[in-house]
């Protein structure tokens, strides 16, 4: 056995008697003939169980007792050879120290972000969902005409939140036409436009015709790329649209 390897290496018998050891092994551990003497009592069972495995080569963590520390974490590499085994021990304490410090920091931060904040965040996101839902109520103007006024900025989240309710209501009332009113819409986000396009396509699939009303020139610009793709009408204001479809219905 090579004694000068720069790590503790032991050659042992089946009952843990040390036959040979590297210089580094002598340097690191108290001199003893029984390997178990340098293994922490709570690691004995693990070592025994591991060695009992029917494999030639294995590696696992073990706590050892060194000259400097009553408990030091090592990685053991075992190579069995007939009745004997070679045990190489690599210290890993230092590597862990780094991880441990980072984790302790993280832990402290998590505790600082106490539950109050956590709860507030939960409540807040529920409120946002709710407010998004409420930003697009579906209104049945008549049997044939639905109105979907959208309020606030047009975002993906908002459309996702209102879609569910809108489709359910539209499905039940089966109108011919839905007016999507943009009068109350502020900014439009690109992802919002994509969601809107999907919403319109679903309406089309349901056989419901979509009319966009109350669009400002700025809004129109955002929707322009989809104009040809979608079978939608544009009417300038709610007033005109309502006159055209609702009043016409009752005349």
């Amino acid at each position, binding site marked *: 056995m090579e004694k000068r390897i720069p790590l503790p290496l032991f050659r042992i018998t089946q009952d843990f008697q040390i036959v040979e050891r590297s210089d580094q092994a002598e340097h690191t551990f108290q001199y003893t003939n029984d390997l178990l003497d340098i293994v922490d009592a709570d690691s004995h069972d693990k070592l025994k169980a591991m060695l009992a495995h029917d494999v030639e080569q294995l590696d696992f*963590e073990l706590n050892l007792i060194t000259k400097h520390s009553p408990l030091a974490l090592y990685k053991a590499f075992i190579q069995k050879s007939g009745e004997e085994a070679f045990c190489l021990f690599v210290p890993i304490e230092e590597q862990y120290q780094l991880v441990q410090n980072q984790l302790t920091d993280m832990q402290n931060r998590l505790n600082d972000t106490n539950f109050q904040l956590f*709860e507030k965040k939960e409540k807040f996101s529920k409120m946002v969902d709710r407010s998004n839902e409420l930003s697009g109520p579906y209104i049945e103007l008549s049997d044939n005409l639905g109105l979907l006024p959208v309020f606030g900025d047009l975002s993906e989240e908002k459309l996702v939140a209102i879609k569910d309710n809108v489709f359910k209501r539209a499905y039940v009332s089966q109108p011919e036409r839905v007016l999507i009113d943009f009068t109350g819409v502020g900014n439009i986000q690109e992802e919002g436009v994509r969601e809107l396009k999907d919403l319109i396509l679903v309406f089309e699939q349901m056989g419901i015709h979509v009319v966009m009303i109350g669009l400002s020139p700025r809004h129109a610009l955002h929707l322009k790329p989809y104009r040809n793709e979608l079978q939608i009408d544009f009417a300038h204001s709610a007033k005109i649209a309502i006159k055209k479809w609702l009043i016409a219905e009752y005349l």
Partner: protein
Amino acid sequence: MQKTTETFVDALLKGDHAASLRIVQNQREHHSRFTIYNELITPAMHEIGMLWQQNKITVADEHLATAVCDFVLSQTEYDLVQHSDFQETTPKAMFFTVQDEYHYLGLKMVSILFREKDWNVKYYQSNLSIDHVMEQVETWKPAVIGLSFALAYRIEALTAYLKKFSELDYEPEILVGGRLMHQYDFSSIGPPNTTFIENLNELQTWFNKDKTIRRDDSDGKANTSSVI
């Protein structure tokens, strides 16, 4: 709760804060903190110890699981802290682990259970030097001092703390806990008012006893309680 423990262990090892918290919050709807600590969280951490023994996880995994477990424990404490309202008469208790001892999860549970019972609690978590402890004890004068240790070789440190406590000019109740309580006979060490507590069931017994004594105290004479 065994099935839940398995799922909980999984979530801890994955470092999944949200899932772990959800499991505990669901359990909280039907169970007390005591039951959750005793039947879910403690067994889960012990299972994690077993997995290390079986070479299925490493100490790094244990660190991650500990961080998540600690987070979850903090959350179970949160609603208590919000409503605590200490008066001068509230009994005081302080908790810490001995020097160089970083196993504190069990101690943390115990400190929360004291808080739940309306004790005025100071929880110092881990690694408190003797000098620091004595300074706190002498100025704050807690009625209960609770300490914990898990590393076998730290028993010397424990003995040193206990000796210091026996020199105090008042007699606080000393509670010593940790996984080693059943492995050693501690009866010869520590001042006479020291109790060694192996698990949460024993803590419950201590609470019950303590309640009777305190009621006796407020009645004026000891052992005159009408509680049967």
